[in-house]
């Protein structure tokens, strides 16, 4: 056992330890870098391969292992196994037996699950791809799926190992490992591009060298991501032994686990329908959807998550001691801060969406037209940024109150709203624009989720200062509207239309700052009090970075 672990053991259980506080700073940087590199390889993939059937098929196949892993283990791991892991550190053997047992049983289960999943790859394709309109290439998806599904095992290994390391207060390697994965994938893409020839689409040949490079390289990335944790685990003093059986403590959480699994399962229904509608509509839809979603999440990932990490520990502590007043205060503060930060960003994304996407993706194989479609998709869905952040915040509050049921029920309602609207997209909108409508629906669903979450938290906690929150949101929308209008007006008067990467950069460089400055200027002029902590937080972040 190293020094930090011993220090941590002297602390009362549940209390935050100094090592955690220190670690979170460098972790924020690692998270940022891993998000940027993760976005980077998607970008490079668009430049080198384009937005077409190949990237569509790859994208679908690459989400499959993630989904199955989540269904098999993901949610349960985060909400049950990890808390127990932390508790097991107080066992007489320092949690060694519990950890070994967890690894033995968990990995065996996952290995079996992986074998079954790989064998069922064609089945997954028929679930996720609607090939009836001839726009998608199910054979290619299946071929990729065979190569990518083994990732499940390594996702699982990574998740378990990082949980174990976190329980031992070792944070660095787990935060940096995804960066390693992204680098491996980048290398894979370059290798793919350098190889001569094309992936043959009709018929799809499993032995096709380019197909193999892309598929196996991506899987290798996850393998490496898990493997880099092994030395860190050895250093922490843990020795693995085969230990079979189920720990008695796991039974306590039976009900909770089921609700969390339900949450994942139901959200997957929405995902499946989304993919089917997209694959039936037009080529490139899936790639555009995943890229737009990535761009959408980027501001949340940087701002929202850093806010959450600041507020979340306080909230869970308040929930644990039953201090409703403080919990409500923190929730309200979190909501208002998110509004002040994210609503102006939504406006900027709406106005500069097309320019941004052409500037980033319109290089190489990406193509101006497809990038513009991506940009429109982003512009039409950017308003969902705040609702999305609120849903995430509320989710944490529910979990902090150990209520896994309400979030699942909220997810049920969200999915029930989403599915008919998705089919409406397919019916109402031209095929090549379906992806724009699908992203719009996605954002609208988050609006439903945010309203629902706020209402049910109100039912449980009483007055949430909702009026105050709504007022701040209204002011932000007003300010952002002014900013967006200013940028739009400027573009009609003085800026060239976006038809090449250069004009896109020009537009972006002018419109983005204008919209931002005007929107935040109006907020400052209206003396929104939430802006002060937000700006100071940013300056602190900048100083730290």
């Amino acid at each position, binding site marked *: 056992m190293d020094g930090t672990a011993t220090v941590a053991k002297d602390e*009362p259980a549940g209390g935050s330890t100094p090592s955690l506080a220190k670690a979170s700073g460098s972790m924020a940087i690692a998270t940022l870098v891993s998000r940027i590199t993760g976005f980077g390889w998607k970008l490079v993939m668009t430049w080198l391969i384009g937005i077409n059937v190949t990237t569509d098929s790859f994208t679908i196949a690459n989400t499959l292992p993630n989904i199955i892993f989540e269904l098999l283990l993901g949610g349960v791991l985060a909400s049950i196994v990890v808390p127990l892991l932390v508790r097991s550190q107080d066992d007489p053997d320092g949690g060694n037996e519990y950890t070994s047992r967890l690894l033995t049983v968990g990995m065996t289960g996952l290995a079996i699950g992986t074998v079954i999943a790989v064998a069922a790859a064609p089945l997954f394709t028929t679930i996720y791809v609607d090939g009836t309109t*001839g726009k998608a290439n199910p054979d290619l998806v299946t071929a990729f799926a065979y190569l990518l599904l083994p990732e499940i095992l390594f996702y699982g290994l990574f998740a378990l190992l990082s949980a174990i390391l976190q329980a031992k207060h070792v944070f660095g390697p787990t935060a940096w490992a995804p960066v390693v994965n992204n680098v491996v994938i980048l290398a894979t893409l370059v290798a793919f591009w350098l190889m001569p020839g094309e992936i043959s689409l009709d018929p799809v040949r499993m032995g096709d060298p380019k197909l193999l490079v892309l598929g196996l390289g991506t899987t290798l990335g996850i393998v490496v991501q898990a493997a880099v944790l092994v030395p860190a685990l050895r250093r922490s003093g843990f020795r693995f032994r085969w230990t079979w059986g189920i720990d008695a403590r796991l039974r306590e*959480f039976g009900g909770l686990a089921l609700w969390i699994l339900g949450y994942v399962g139901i959200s997957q229904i929405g995902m499946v329908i989304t993919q089917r509608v997209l694959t039936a509509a*037009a080529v490139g839809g899936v790639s555009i959807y995943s890229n737009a979603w990535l761009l959408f999440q980027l501001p949340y990932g940087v701002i929202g998550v850093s806010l959450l990490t600041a507020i979340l520990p306080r909230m869970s502590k308040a929930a644990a001691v039953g201090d409703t007043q403080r919990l409500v205060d923190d929730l309200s503060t979190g909501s208002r801060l998110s509004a002040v930060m994210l609503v102006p960003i939504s406006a900027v994304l709406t106005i500069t969406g097309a320019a941004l996407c052409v500037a980033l993706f319109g290089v190489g194989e990406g193509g101006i037209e497809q990038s513009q479609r991506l940009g429109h998709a982003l512009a039409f869905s950017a308003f969902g940024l705040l609702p999305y952040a609120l849903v995430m915040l509320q989710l944490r509050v529910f979990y902090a109150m150990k*209520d896994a049921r309400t979030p699942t029920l909220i997810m049920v309602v969200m999915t029930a709203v989403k599915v008919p609207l998705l089919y409406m997209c397919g019916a109402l909108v031209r095929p090549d624009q379906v992806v724009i*409508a699908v992203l719009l629906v996605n954002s609208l*669903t988050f609006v439903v989720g945010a309203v629902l979450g706020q209402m049910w938290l109100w039912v449980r906690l009483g007055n949430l200062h909702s009026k105050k929150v709504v007022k701040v949101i209204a002011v932000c929308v007003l300010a952002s509207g002014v900013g967006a209008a200013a940028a739009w007006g400027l573009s009609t008067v003085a800026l060239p239309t976006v038809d090449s990467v250069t004009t896109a950069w020009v537009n972006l460089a002018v419109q983005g700052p204008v919209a931002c400055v005007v929107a935040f200027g109006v907020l400052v002029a209206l003396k929104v009090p939430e802006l002060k902590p937000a700006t100071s937080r940013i300056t602190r972040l900048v100083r730290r970075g």
Partner: protein
Amino acid sequence: MTTRRTEYPVGEGAAGNQAGPGFLVPGSAVGDGRYRLLAEFGLDERVNAHLWRAQDNQLRRDVGLTLLVGDPANATAAGAARKMLERTMHAARITHPGTSRVLDVLGPGNGIAPNEGLLGIVVADWSQGTDLVDVIAEHPLPPSTAARLLEPLAAAVELAHHSGMVLGIDHPQRIRVTPDGLLRLSFPGPLPEATLQDDVRGLGAILYLLLTGKWPLRSAPGLPHAPLAPDGQVVPPRALFPYIPYELSSAAVRSLTDDATGGIRTSSGLLRVLERAKLNEDATQSISAIQDDTEDEDDDGALWTTKRPHNDRSKRRKLAIGVTALAVATVGVLAWLGMQLISFFGDDSPGAGGPTVVATAPGNAENNPKPPTPGQPIQAAGVQVYNVKGTPDSPRRANRAVDGDPATSWKTDKYQQPFPALKPGVGLMASFAEPVPFAEVVIDSPSSGTVVEIRTAPSEKPGLDETKVIGRATLQPGQTRLQLDSAEPTQHLLIWITTLADGNVSEITEVGFLRAAQ
């Protein structure tokens, strides 16, 4: 709900344990996983007993749990809990409608895992019905109803006292009202030091509560305390509500007092008063018939439904459902509007739905009196860039011109000078599975001004002079329909660009082939 969560010993030995009953939440499991908690019904602060409705995971039935929370390392608390469990076990022998049947009594190492943070659990039959607190929440009950409700509980106490056992009824949240209108001790578990007298006092307190809506003993959560007279005693119920018969009012007060003179010391004494009050029921009703009628109806509603009329949460829940429905409807409308907007937005995108221009066949009337009539569209087996000089233009994207997707296209390189400065032209060679007679080629392109020739070719890579022109047109933005003047079957068809559009670059979004009608 309660803020009393810091009262637990947090000294040495407690660190590894749960710090407080924060783990007692709906959905969590207790009793080594056997019972899953459903809803909290109260808290007896005197012994830190949490009252929960729960489900028996094995027998799939509902039970009422009295959870004794505390640290096993604290000897005093553990001893008190052990005592309570023992007393409950003894009292379990009593079977009476006024008390829920005790199903099981669990202690540490005997159904409770050591790390659960619990000192004991009393498992009892779940009694359907309403919380006592909810029944009197809106208004106090008419005296006759109060007497009728309390009688079976008093009878249960009487039965227990005959065998020298204490029931432990002196806490309002432990009592529930069954659907058939009886008070029942639903969360059994007498306090370690409780005496028979405490039970009688409890009965008196419940009677006081039913009559006035106020609790005369140590304050209970969620209930107003009874007002005190200057002598420190609670004021008699009659002083609050003059319609309460003197006998009931004084019985309630006398059961509460400790002093031997004039106090009711046994449950049988109280029981007699209750029976008499019940007999007086008719008389009371005939005296103030109107008042009682309305009140009887009201408390019917309160007694025989499980609804909680005074519950803030249920009102909020209804409002929440309403707001949710409104949000869903709004979002539906917004989605529809958004999609209209998207359709509107997309109409100006190039290459879609543009006008169709028809270019007639170039051949003159002598060669071919009548151009072939177009029939079925036919899909090319493959498309390649056809190039005679220099490097081919975007050869890997040639098939985008026939992929059926108007969002993708094939483009020529961007040339410095117009053809034929560098090359005579550039084209797309479409190959078919078998020789086909063609009637029309439809080219969808945003590059107006591009001049295109359609040529038949003998092979996939012929010399340009081996090919034969059968159609020619200058492309208009959108679709251009080229009629061909030869119906001779050919397996290879060349779309040959001889003049580029503005900027010396041309783009072809989609090419469609129509065979001649037979």
